[in-house]
């Protein structure tokens, strides 16, 4: 684990919150979960009109968003060099002069997220930064490789130095209502992770209904997920505000019932600073301020940071920015 990072850096889950140990599968609770799509969409649609963050507050919130980004590359052509560049950006996500002007020197992203084979270069590149490496696993993104290989993959990644494992659930268990199978699978993944934290990717774009999203969220938390995450980024529909609302309401219920806080990670499709502000407001409204920290909230995003950088430069200078003025990831 990341014993090297300074105590002041509080974005590692294990430093502040007791981990969710999970609980026995409570099917009554799972089956009680409902999600009224129209009402949820109305809430999601009106939220951006109900909360507005301006000026210094906006700048601070955008810095908070950066601190919660899992800076991600999940491409077939990833190389050590490409990952090194990403990690450099993770350490210095915003131009130093801008961070100084904002009084936010030392700001880093929440984590770097890569495929298994890129863990080692990432760990090397991030050494001393305190930034954890997250690895997607378990036959990402489809999760249809042999079960024992998916479990073994987790072990390999943890050994390679991943502090966080983003597992994918078997969508077929949700689509066929086999909640026990989903629970057992997630339990096994959790066990395989050991000290590494588990982010359970629901692939919500493939679950068909919001009710399935609500139920799968509960089952994964009962099985001991530290985070629940919307998407692999490879589905045709990734993170949305309605899906997020369903998932964080499940997190809220789980906390009310067990006292354990489970984290939330929307991933895919979040590319604008304004989107990030909406997500943060949604979390603040529905879950509360405690969740506005990288140990309980992450953005899975690759292009979001660029837009935030431009907004921050605009905040500092008053002039609209350009992409080439900011370092590429």
């Amino acid at each position: 684990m990341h014993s090297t990072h300074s105590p002041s850096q509080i974005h590692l889950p294990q430093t502040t919150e007791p981990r969710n140990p999970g609980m026995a599968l409570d099917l009554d609770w799972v089956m009680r979960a409902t999600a009224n799509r129209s009402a949820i969409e109305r809430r999601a649609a009106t939220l951006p009109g109900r909360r507005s963050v301006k000026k210094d507050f906006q700048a601070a919130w955008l810095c908070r968003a950066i601190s919660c980004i899992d800076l991600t590359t999940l491409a077939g052509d990833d190389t050590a060099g490409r990952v090194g560049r990403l990690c450099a950006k993770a350490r210095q996500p915003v131009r130093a002069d801008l961070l100084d002007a904002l009084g936010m020197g030392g700001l880093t992203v929440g984590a770097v997220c890569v495929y298994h084979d890129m863990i080692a270069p990432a760990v090397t590149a991030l050494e001393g930064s305190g930034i954890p490496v997250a690895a997607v696993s378990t036959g990402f993104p489809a999760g249809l490789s042999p079960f024992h290989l998916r479990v073994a993959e987790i072990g390999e990644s943890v050994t390679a130095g991943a502090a966080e494992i983003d597992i994918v659930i078997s969508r077929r268990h949700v689509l066929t209502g086999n909640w026990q199978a989903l629970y057992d699978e997630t339990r096994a993944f959790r066990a395989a992770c050991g000290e590494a934290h588990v982010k359970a990717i629901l692939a919500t774009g493939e679950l068909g209904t919001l009710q399935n999203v609500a139920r799968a969220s509960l089952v994964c938390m009962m099985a001991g997920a530290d985070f629940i995450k919307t998407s692999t980024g490879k589905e045709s529909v990734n993170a949305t505000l309605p899906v997020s609302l369903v998932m964080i309401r499940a997190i809220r219920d789980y906390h009310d019932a067990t006292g354990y806080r489970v984290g939330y990670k929307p991933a895919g499709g979040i590319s604008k600073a304004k989107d990030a502000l909406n997500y943060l407001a949604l979390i603040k409204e529905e879950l509360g301020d405690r969740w506005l920290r990288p140990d309980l909230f992450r953005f899975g995003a690759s292009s979001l940071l660029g837009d935030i950088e431009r907004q921050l430069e605009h905040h500092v200078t008053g002039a609209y920015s350009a992409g080439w003025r900011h370092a590429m990831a």
Partner: protein
Amino acid sequence: MTIKDIFQSMDYGTAPESAGDALAWLVDQGDRFGHFIDGAFTEPGDGFESRNPATGEVLALLTQATPADVEAAVSAARRAQPKWARLGGAGRARFLYALARLLQKHARLFAVLETLDNGKPIRESRDIDVPLAARHFYYHAGMAQLMAAELPGREALGVCGQVIPWNFPLLMLAWKVAPAIAMGNTVVLKPAEYTSLTAMLFADICRQAGLPKGVVNIVTGDGHVGEMIVKADVDKVAFTGSTEVGRKIRAATAGSGKALTLELGGKSPYIVFEDADIDSAVEGLVDAIWFNQGQVCCAGSRLIVQEGIAERFHAKLRARMDKLRIGDPLDKSIDVGAIVDPSQLARIQALVDGNTEGEVYRTPCTLPNQGCYYAPTLITGLHPASHLMQEEIFGPVLCATTFRTPGEAVEIANNTRYGLAASVWSENINVALDIAPKLAAGVVWVNGTNMFDAAAGFGGVRESGFGREGGWEGLQAYTRPAGKPKPLKPVMPFKGDTVEPQAVDRTAKLYIGGKQVRPDGGYARAIHNRNGTLIGQAPIANRKDVRNAVEAAQGGRGWAAATAHLRAQILYYIAENLAARKDEFAVTLNRMTGTRSGDKEVDASVDRLFTYAAWADKFDGQVRSVPIRGAALAMREPCGVIGAFCPDDAPLLGLVSVMAPAIAMGNRVVLVASEPFPLAATDFYQVLDTSDLPGGVVNILTGSHADLAPALASHMNVESVWSFSSTDLSAVIEKAAAGNLKRTWVNDGAARDWFGAEGEGRPFLEAATEVKTVWIPYGA
């Protein structure tokens, strides 16, 4: 605070919308306003201050209209009206379209001005009030365009006097003005004294749109000005506001012949079943009772939760309340703004402080030092008997109770004088769609709340008023059948003293609850023919017979649930049985009226029964094109119990003509037969008796129309009263109807040709039904 501090605290800070442009507009107008009459602003006169309730600051000075001002406005409207109507629907549509466009072009100015004047959050005025107002003008531009083709035989009423409230100043203006001018009427509108500024801005855009002078006139002032408009030479009064004032207007316009629509108070239930999406139902309450500070006539102010989930629901609700942000209405992150006026704040405080029951929870917040604010409040553990469960608070105060079964939920929900709106939350389509039609409300939202659209009718039942705004049904309130009606001459009974013996004496009785009963008073009136010969006696019903008949009619409510097919079958059967006795009825009719039209009248009566048997399963509701994923059903529901004074001039046909449409639609009726010629009605109940009609569906009284009218029209358990009597009852009925604000349909002394086209058809069916709008958003 540094950015680093905020990075830690993650506070929202403030996000104020600039008031600069709106304040500059006020300055440009001199901070003083006259009235808008005949296309121009009058010189400002003596009046009153319009204040920003969030700060107490004076925004502008408004003029209190004098009788001369009102008269000038009405005259201008009167002068403009014929030409405006003659312009034609297509011509008027261009102006409505322009008004819609101009509302959009000046959207932010309208929104900011509305928030300054009213205290509602800028989010609401910007995202709800102004877009809905524009939508109303677009929609009714379409209605103007289609009027000639789709509303044949209908014409404008003339001049409409419109008095609107302060809770949605611009939106209520749009709801009133758009349908009125679309149909070729001209208007004199009075905004509420607290909130007249957006009406003044609207007057300004009327000029920008080039609207002909006098089509829209706006006068400002307090309730006295409203009274002047009600009494003025207008053809229609439309009012949105309190039930108390609505009642006064009903009484004041009684017998005047002025058309009237009232959109009044409410105490709308918000029912949550145990299988609901609880988080969404909790969130819905934010839009139900904390929307516009709860100053919404259709606010979901009575929370009715199934017992098993009540504790969890209330806990979640309290947690949600903790997140509400109260404060500067111009701040874009504010959920609850300012109460419109200190007097309203005091009223809310007095009502809540006077309550000693239940458990009170308030959003923990610091209210601004100045301005009119009230913290969102939840009172759980109340009961239907609690004062606060019955009284409209008109503030951000939610009153809660529980229920055990769907049936009990409906009972509690309907245990109120009001009937404006209702919400039902359940994920079970069987539960939701069963409950929605059973609720006494003009609008029902399934898994939602406070949804509005120009295409969907809005309005209430019971003491929430009558008439609909929006949709096709809304146009009924601004049109009438074309043509000038002929006056109805009183039809007098024949007098006489000659007697001719009958083979066997017959005793005509009253018909109540499916039984022939003697009149409570034990009196009968002698009935003579044209020659003065005694031909029988008819019972004289009194107020106790009215009471008994209404009770029987209420007992027959199962009729409303009978299938339309069954109602049609029974109407056909009545026709069949009447036809079988045609000769006998014809003789009676001829003998009573001294004419030879008996055969014709019986034939026409049989035909009419066939007509409404035909209609019984064909007067359909509609699915409205509202901008949601879902359906908005405009359902035709029976009014309930209809009391009807039947025409004197067509003793059988007249009775059948009012009875048949009413019962075809599922109503129960108390019919007061032709006063001079009652003996066809007392024979007719024998036809009913043999036609499988359930007891209580049709009740027939005979006697003096003038004597029975006050009792029937004031009866609190009667939903509607019609009069086609040749006795002039219109004023009496409309005045007495003010008690429970029942619907009325009176002839205002005008004749109707019962044998012709105007003796049947849609007007009867429309009077016999209420349109209930059921919003059903859906999504798998």
